[in-house]
């Protein structure tokens, strides 16, 4: 085989398994994520940039394990937790997952609402129409078709990179702050750091990525390529986050008036006078598409995880009557999420988000703990169990993430 042919084979193999990693990582940048990154950039400027690189590494560490478990066992994470830790543990875990994912869905529909209002479209039109279309697409199609839609949605994130350039950042300051860590020892800065890690590594992602690896049916032989998919996903999402922080840091941090924005829509509005209409518009389009994207995936992920754990039929490929529980939960999360986002006022929305963040923060360490127990179980993972070095890194990294998300919980509860 010539070198070119070998590469072509590799590319074809990669194309076959690509998807779950990239999509999961990108959905990570949903309304909540974009809000956090925008606020971080506006408040702390370039100084917060360096946090993104270690966060990316932690993301790869955690998601790679899920990916591996999915490929090796052919089962979703919640099914594995049910088999290994029993019904009771998985039931309460699923309950917490529904609560936090519902909170995230509310955030996403609220993101859609805020995004369209920048273009003077009523939220009472956009949110119901958007929710219905998403619901319909997923109910009527197969995993392959849905995945294609998601790839298109991923492309919209380019808008953030463009808006990052349009904001005309000071590139030398950017380069310096990306590589040299600066820590400000005050609670707002620490809270922000933890917040970034918390939105980047959320519990639904582990369940979602593993489930989609399973649904895609990636053979063990091609695990290497599937791992590349995870790494690519993490890199792409980090680049996008990077440009969101960058745009907000460049345009909003200098001015004390715009430094204290609270949401992604605020950021888009604040960008308009400083960086121009096109920059603000792109930012808003990015927000809308990311929110819609998140609003589709979170209900699917919730429903798949719950059904797997409880032993109900699930899967996008099934018809409504073949998987009634699956579609009921899916519809419930979308309808309730959209309704709360439409009918609740802003201050109450923020407290709903905070609550869901707290549940998120408590859930994540538990999920990671279960994951590490399962991935070290030779009877489940065989030769693909973690090696000693990887295990050390995994426990350290997971411990760090867990500690940070618990800190987040404490800080949030203390207000």
């Amino acid at each position: 085989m010539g070198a070119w042919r070998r590469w072509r084979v590799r590319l074809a193999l990669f194309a076959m398994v690509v998807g779950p990693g990239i999509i999961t990582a990108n959905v990570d940048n949903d309304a909540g994520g974009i809000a956090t990154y925008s606020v971080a950039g506006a408040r702390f400027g370039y100084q917060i940039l360096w946090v993104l690189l270690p966060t990316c590494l932690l993301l790869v560490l955690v998601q790679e394990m899920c990916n591996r478990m999915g490929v090796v066992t052919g089962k979703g994470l919640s099914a594995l937790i049910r088999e290994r830790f029993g019904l009771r543990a998985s039931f309460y875990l699923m309950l917490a997952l529904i609560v936090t994912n519902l909170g995230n869905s509310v955030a996403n529909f609220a993101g859609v609402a805020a995004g369209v209002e920048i273009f003077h479209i009523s939220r009472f039109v956009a949110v119901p129409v958007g929710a219905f279309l998403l619901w319909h697409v997923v109910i009527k199609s197969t995993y392959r078709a849905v995945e294609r839609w998601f790839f298109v949605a991923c492309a919209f994130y380019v808008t953030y990179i463009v808006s990052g350039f349009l904001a005309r950042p000071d590139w030398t300051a950017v380069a310096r702050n990306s590589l040299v860590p600066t820590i400000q020892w005050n609670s707002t800065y620490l809270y922000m750091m933890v917040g970034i890690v918390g939105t980047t590594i959320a519990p639904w992602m582990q369940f979602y990525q593993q489930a989609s690896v399973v649904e895609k049916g990636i053979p063990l032989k091609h695990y290497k390529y599937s791992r590349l998919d995870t790494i690519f996903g993490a890199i792409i999402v980090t680049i996008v986050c990077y440009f969101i922080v960058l745009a907000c840091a460049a345009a909003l941090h200098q001015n004390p008036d715009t430094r204290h924005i609270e949401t992604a829509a605020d950021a888009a509005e604040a960008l308009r006078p400083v960086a121009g209409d096109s920059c603000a518009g792109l930012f808003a389009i990015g927000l809308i598409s990311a929110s819609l994207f998140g609003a589709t995936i979170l209900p699917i992920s919730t429903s798949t995880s719950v059904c797997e754990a409880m032993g109900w039929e699930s899967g996008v490929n099934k018809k409504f009557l073949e998987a009634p529980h699956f579609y009921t939960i899916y519809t419930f999360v979308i309808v309730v999420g959209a309704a709360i986002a439409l009918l609740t006022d802003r201050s109450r929305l923020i407290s709903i988000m905070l609550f869901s963040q707290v549940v998120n923060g408590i859930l994540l360490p538990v999920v990671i703990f279960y994951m590490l127990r399962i991935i070290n179980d030779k009877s489940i993972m065989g030769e693909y169990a973690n090696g000693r070095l990887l295990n050390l890194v995994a426990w350290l990294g997971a411990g760090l993430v867990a500690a940070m998300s618990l800190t987040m919980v404490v800080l949030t509860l203390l207000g």
Partner: protein
Amino acid sequence: MANARPAGTYYYLSELLGAQVRVEGEGAPLGRLRDIGFQTTAPYPPATCIEVRSRSRGTSTLPWSAVKEFSARAVVVQRVEGPPPVPDFWARRDVLDDQVVDLSGARVRRVNDVQFLYTEGRLVPAHVEIGFLGILRRLGVVRPARAFLHWLFDYTPKETFVTWRHVQVLSPGGVRVAARLKRLTDLHPAELADILEDLGAKERQALLATLDPETAADALEEVDPDVQRTLMSQEEPGKAADILEEMPAQEAADVLRELADPEAQRIINRMETEAADDVREILAHEEETAGSMMATSCIEARPEHTAAAVLEATRPQAEDVGVFNIIYVLDETRRLVGVVSLRELFAAAPDTRVDELMTTHVITVPADASPQDLARLFGKYGLRAIPVVDERGELLGAVRLKDVLNELAHLMRE
């Protein structure tokens, strides 16, 4: 009274686990019941051992013969010598919370609880619980949940049982038994396919290994392409080739298309020459064209043959050909000159020549005809199969109505 034992008592596994185990005549308990092992010697297999766990002494296995008294509150055992038997499956480890195959519904189920019948000193599994009530019981909220559901929806949740006779355990030991009893081969291939799709990787491969190549091939044809790909690339190439040989060439080609090139080649190279050639022929055509859907094995005849000779020649091929009721008449250069149906051959006098019987106006398609073109022709002429020819009229194969239906169904799902 020692002999006033009830005719039989039903226990749930969830209430048995954690029961105190103590040795007859000794005060301190041995530990708590952790698992129960079974040997599959009958449709309702008897318990052959129990696993006891204590904080101080760790885990130990005792044979069932050591058990003197058995209830959900306490298990009384006596000390016995010798190694305990190795069971085919464990109730907690391999059944509870795991996937099993429900042979009656031909579905994969997740087990919420197992119900046992204890009678005359024997413990056998009676049912597995797969319903909502089982979940509630495990959570310990049956009563309040029942009251609530009744109050709010006027709904009383009921037990959803699968009788043990219809349960197939998927642990390695359980699957070995399934292979011996050939329990799964009675299922319809489409049902087997659904089951394969719903299982985890290990269970799936184990189940496939219990099937003979013919059953495996029938099931695999019905399986979702993604699952086909995983199954075939995980399977050892020789075994995969055995299975694909049992499939019609165009189905085998569909499976191979899902695999990466070198993988597919490795499998084709291990197939028998004839089957491999057929598959290669089909793979040479574009997907979603007549060439990729056609059956390559047809009954062929020459114009100068007699009806009797053709019928005689048909007999040995009848089992294998893809298109059976139509005979394709070819000239010496293999060009298609006519078709004659089996019915016409039977009806004719034995010494009638084929060219007197055959229809010479034949509807044919080129190898690149689309499923839509084919559907139109099938609709217009009411045919059962349409021959595929190359540009000089040489017969390549024939597309059957059902191949087109399959393809169109597949396209609609996309």
